[in-house]
């Protein structure tokens, strides 16, 4: 039992490591990955200022801009991870290793999360200074919990997508493309999701970022409580539910994928 747990932890750390090292070795990426989201954010800031939106919207936009980094990471990197591992010849070795694939996949998520956190932090810092955002943080513990659960649900979804993308191969690219823009709109990166109307907001809540963003904003800018969609405790509860849902689904998808691929001979690239 202890040995099992140790193997799990080692596998997570082992796979997270390359992403973490990658972040520090290729520093040029950090620059581009910070500047580009900031540009998008700045555009919204200027629009909101021009139309005289409440000042709290500026903070919304900056926090939203930072969180897009996580969405991009899940959509473009995490989801296609297993596909790339197969292309580069790692997948077979990962599957044939005694460590559970879930641990290795979690390691990818942790690595991506770390790497993206650097970018998100940079966006928040630079954006807040540039546009003079005022935070009125009340409950830091709850904010941390909300962030953690949002990430668990988001990366859980990424882990689920990773298995599905491997099944679908190249077609998955189109899905990523298809998902990117609507999600910007639906999850309320740049405005409160409440404006979408109740039922659309409920549907959008299956994207973990929607509720996470909404709850974090309520915690960071409590001066405008009317902008929130649901109350924070309800949103935190829902996020916890989503995390469990996605992670369990990812586990079964992975198991199914392995069995199917073994039967069809698609687990490894054909060479020679």
């Amino acid at each position, binding site marked *: 039992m202890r040995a099992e747990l140790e*193997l799990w932890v*080692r596998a997570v750390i082992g796979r997270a*490591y*390359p992403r973490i090292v990658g972040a520090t070795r290729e520093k040029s990426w950090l620059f581009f990955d910070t500047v580009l989201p900031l540009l998008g954010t700045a555009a919204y800031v200027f629009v909101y200022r021009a139309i005289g939106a409440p000042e709290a919207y500026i903070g919304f936009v900056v926090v939203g801009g930072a969180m897009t980094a996580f969405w991009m990471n899940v959509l473009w990197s995490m989801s296609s991870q297993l596909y790339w591992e197969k292309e*580069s*010849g790692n997948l*077979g070795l990962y*599957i044939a290793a*005694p460590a559970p694939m879930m641990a290795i996949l979690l390691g990818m998520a942790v690595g991506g999360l770390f790497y993206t956190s650097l970018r998100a932090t940079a966006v928040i810092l630079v954006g807040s200074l540039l546009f003079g955002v005022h935070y009125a943080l009340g409950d830091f513990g709850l904010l941390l919990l909300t962030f953690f659960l949002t990430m668990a649900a988001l990366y859980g979804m990424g882990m689920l997508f990773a298995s599905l993308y491997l099944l679908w191969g190249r077609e998955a690219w189109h899905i990523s493309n298809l998902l990117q823009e609507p999600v910007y709109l639906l999850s309320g990166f740049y405005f409160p999701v409440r404006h979408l109307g109740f039922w659309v907001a409920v549907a959008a809540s299956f994207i973990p970022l929607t509720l996470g963003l909404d709850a974090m904003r309520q915690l960071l800018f409590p001066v405008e409580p009317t902008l929130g969609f649901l109350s924070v405790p309800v949103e935190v509860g829902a996020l916890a539910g989503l995390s469990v849902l996605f992670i369990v689904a990812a586990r079964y998808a992975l198991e199914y994928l392995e069995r199917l691929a073994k039967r069809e001979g698609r687990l490894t690239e054909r060479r020679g």
Partner: protein
Amino acid sequence: MEEPLAIRTEKLTRIYKIREGKGRRKKKRELVALDRVNLEVQRGELFGLLGPNGAGKTTLIKILTTLLSPTSGRAWVDGLDVERDMREIRRRINMVSGGETSGYGLLTVQENLWMFAQFYGLDRWTARRRMDELLEMVGLVDRRHTKISDLSTGLRQKMNIVRGFLTDPRIIFLDEPTLGLDVGAARQVRSFIANWLKGRPDRTVLLTTHYMVEADELCDRVAIIDHGQVLACDAPARLKRSLGQEAIYHIRVSLLPSEATHGFRLIEGVRQFTPRFHDGHVHLDFILREDDVLTAVVDRISRSGARILSLEKREPTLEDVFIDMVGRGLTEEHPEE
């Protein structure tokens, strides 16, 4: 209790379903990659699978390493069923393939090896100790801090080899481990494998190759495989001896009219004949029933107008054994590819 065999297969069969053609014209075809293969590999053996491209070697390795399901038949690794006891098998084995591109280019040799060791739960000290020993053995010590994207093919493959042996597997699968390596690097890899086994009599190696020298030099026993079927299985020396009285001649001639080559098979006593073009000459390999047949062969060459540049009687090789059985060489293009 009796120690189980390292590897055993029973009527192991794998059929691939292939979709051919494009669009609406898609047709499904079945390809038998392994055809009722029975194999028994003893513990401590260095066992070779020798066969041309497409013979089914990689397919067999994938099944034994739990990456592919058999279509029918069964297989056991270290006494464990490949379909039922996957988790336990995975703890005990490892594998390396030729031309492998595993790992991350941004990481150094040492970091990549460490990462893979984590997936086997190796603690830092064990990993470190084995890494030192293995890097030394393959001559990669001074490259341990090189990013693997900067390694040459040969060095990269040596790192892959270290990765496979790092977990001290009870059974290791090597799928054409010297594929694409230059002569020197290939020799180093071969001698590493032999050396590693020397101090570890209870470890087993299953190696596939289409280089007959590799099978001959390295392996205790060799199974010759073609079109998914095991044609023969024995020690290399005994396989070669099975050619018996037959005489093997290598004749180099100057330009031979291509229609002339057809006639050789018709000569009474010519068991197999393979022509090859190399270095501007025609190389003819004959397996003759007995030495006396040579006269008729030489006679036919001179009547065709070609000039004999050299003639040599050879000891039989494993390739001759293969040619004798299937009528073509190991490295010739596979007719279906």
